[in-house]
């Protein structure tokens, strides 16, 4: 046996190859296979995530599942704000090489100057630029139909506000990213928002999802928020306020309608307002929710609290005579004056005629701390009782720092400040049997639990005084409304002009009226404020009370409250029968 392999029979071709060479080749090939096998095992078993990922990138997609923002509803379930689909157009400037004619066409459909469009498209360094957000889907379709390269669109959601400017200050608005910016949209943003979901799918060649892989996260739709606002009341209130602001050539105005039993806000409106869907050139004056953010000295509106405290503690009776002659008095060197001298008045008449002197004389019998206690438990100077962006607490200095003159002026509503909303809410003391109740913007079917401030008897007595004040011989007879008994207090204040309060003929005023109806069992409290009426009339009883009257009339009718005072019927009972 030779130690070589014979490849051929021909002796000429015999070569002497040693056996180890062929074994070496076999061995080398075997080693190669082992190497391949090891590599394959390494790739497929040990280190497979890289390739898995690369594979997935090619066929699987993560799809976002948008969550709808919740709606805002009024107390009857009518929509105050809702989201509808809208299309946003964007461009990839690198890919978009439009000629002049195409640009002109596109600019026209986008409703923007062609120069602006050209500028946006020229931003080559940006990979992405919005051309227009939240367009009407139909207009957007026309753009898609142009089939321009580098121009594409994305579906988004746009907020619509059917009530427009009438409810703008309550509802607020969202920005283009669907984030609440003002009002209820801001306050309840997290409730309304919902949570977007996502899922993993395998897509086929045509881009259709064919299989779901992994776990999907279901989107959580935003919750609806139901407000206490009544759309009809809100609209009437806004309309009457707007008419009054325009008729009195006032700067601005606010109105608040509160349910006297539940503390629900039925309407809250300000003028000037804005359309929450078209928010271009908005001014601060339009945006300001004056009813909650503007504070001023409540003036005569405070008198019922001072008198109520005196009645409640038994210091005076409704028939106690207070001598207010000669219509002015001195308190530590300062003079307190009535607008007209009245002489001897009963406590009731002090409210009816709104006598500063009478109120001061009653207030000076009481310790400052008791007055402070009453005022602050009614909500003055306290944290706003309603959660709302921009709501202010007003100002009420601690009783310890009150000098006698300050106690005197505080008794008739000066030296402290409050927003119109706070005043309206504080009047629940009189409407709700002496208890102050929480105000709320959310619908609430449970009866409100109040914090007692006065006894129910005191509240009833003060209500009667308020009725007298709003009746003939009072300061606000224009608050009277057909069919319903009303009661309330008016207020008028000089506004600061420069360093003082202006001189005669150059004064600026603020006028307001806060009252309730029907007076025996109040259902609503209404507050109206007009800022700087300049059409001649400026007393609260002249400019704000008529708005109060109309708002009360409409609101009680909408609520289905029966008139509590008889009215001259104007129904023609026996009209001539029409012949057929």
């Amino acid at each position, binding site marked *: 046996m030779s130690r070589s392999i014979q490849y051929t029979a021909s002796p000429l071709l015999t070569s002497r190859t040693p056996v180890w060479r062929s074994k070496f080749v076999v061995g080398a090939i075997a080693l190669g296979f082992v190497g391949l096998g090891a590599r394959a095992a390494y790739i497929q078993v040990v280190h497979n995530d890289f390739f898995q990922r690369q594979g997935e990138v090619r066929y699987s997609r993560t799809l976002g599942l948008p969550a*709808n923002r919740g709606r805002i509803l009024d107390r009857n379930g*009518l*929509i105050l704000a*809702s*989201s*509808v*689909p809208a299309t946003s157009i964007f461009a990839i400037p690198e890919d978009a090489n439009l000629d002049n004619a195409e640009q002109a066409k596109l600019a026209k459909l986008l409703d923007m100057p062609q120069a602006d469009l050209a500028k946006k498209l020229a931003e080559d360094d940006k990979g992405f630029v919005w051309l227009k957000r939240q367009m009407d889907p139909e207009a957007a379709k026309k753009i898609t139909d142009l089939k321009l390269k580098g121009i594409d669109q994305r579906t988004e959601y746009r907020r*619509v506000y*059917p*009530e*427009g400017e*009438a409810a703008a200050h309550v509802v607020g608005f969202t920005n283009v990213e669907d984030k609440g910016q003002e009002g209820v949209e801001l306050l309840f943003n997290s409730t309304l928002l919902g949570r977007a979901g996502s899922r993993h799918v395998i897509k*086929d060649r045509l881009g*259709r*999802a*064919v*299989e*779901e892989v992994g776990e999907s996260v279901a989107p959580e739709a935003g919750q609806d928020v139901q407000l206490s606002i009544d*759309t*009809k009341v809100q*609209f*009437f209130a806004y*309309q009457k306020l707007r008419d009054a602001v325009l008729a009195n050539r006032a700067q601005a105005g606010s109105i608040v309608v509160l349910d006297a039993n539940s503390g629900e806000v039925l309407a809250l409106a300000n003028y000037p307002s804005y359309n929450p869907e078209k928010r271009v050139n908005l001014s601060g004056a339009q945006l300001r929710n004056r009813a909650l953010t503007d504070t001023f000295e409540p003036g005569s509106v405070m008198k019922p609290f001072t008198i109520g405290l005196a009645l409640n503690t038994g210091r005076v009776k409704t028939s106690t005579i207070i001598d207010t002659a000669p219509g002015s008095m001195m308190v530590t060197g300062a003079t307190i004056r009535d607008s007209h001298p009245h002489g001897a008045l009963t406590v009731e008449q002090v409210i009816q005629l709104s006598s500063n002197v009478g109120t001061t004389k009653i207030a000076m019998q009481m310790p400052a701390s008791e007055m402070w206690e009453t005022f602050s438990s009614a909500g003055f100077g306290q944290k706003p009782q309603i959660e709302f962006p921009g709501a202010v607490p007003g100002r009420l200095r601690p009783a310890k720092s009150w000098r006698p003159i300050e106690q005197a002026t505080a008794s008739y509503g000066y030296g402290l400040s409050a927003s119109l909303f706070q005043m309206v809410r504080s009047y629940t003391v009189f409407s709700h049997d002496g208890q102050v109740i929480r105000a709320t913007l959310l619908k609430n079917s449970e009866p409100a639990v109040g914090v007692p401030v006065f006894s129910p008897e005191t509240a009833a007595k003060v209500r009667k005084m308020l009725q007298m004040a709003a009746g003939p011989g009072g300061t606000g007879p224009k608050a009277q409304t*057909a*069919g*319903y008994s009303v009661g309330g207090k008016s207020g008028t204040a000089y506004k600061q002009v420069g360093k003082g309060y202006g001189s005669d003929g150059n004064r600026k005023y603020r006028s307001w009226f806060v009252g309730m109806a029907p007076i025996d069992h109040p259902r609503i409290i209404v507050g109206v404020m007009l800022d700087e009426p300049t059409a001649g009339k400026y007393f609260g009883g002249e400019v704000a009370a008529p708005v109060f009257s109309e708002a009360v*009339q409409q609101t009680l*009718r909408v609520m289905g409250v*029966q*008139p509590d005072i008889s*009215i*001259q*019927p*104007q*129904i023609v009972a026996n009209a001539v029968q029409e012949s057929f």
Partner: protein
Amino acid sequence: MTRVNLLLALAVLGSAIYLVGVQYESRRLFTELEQVQREARRLNTELERLQVDKRSQATPARIERVAQEKLQMRQVTPGITMYISASDTAQAKP
């Protein structure tokens, strides 16, 4: 032995083909489901949009304008309202 093996091989082949078929069918159905769900979403948003539309056609502002301008109606006042309470109507019934 070979026959059994052949049979098993055929069975494996058959089940493999069946699996492909089922997979195909399931993907087809999934696509269909997907489409229907998309349609449902679209209809939902459409509903939302129409509800809003309906609502904005029925705002108090518009109703008042139409009632006054087109229908020549005027606002109700208590003077021209006849109030009847529930007990009155009960008595009125024979």
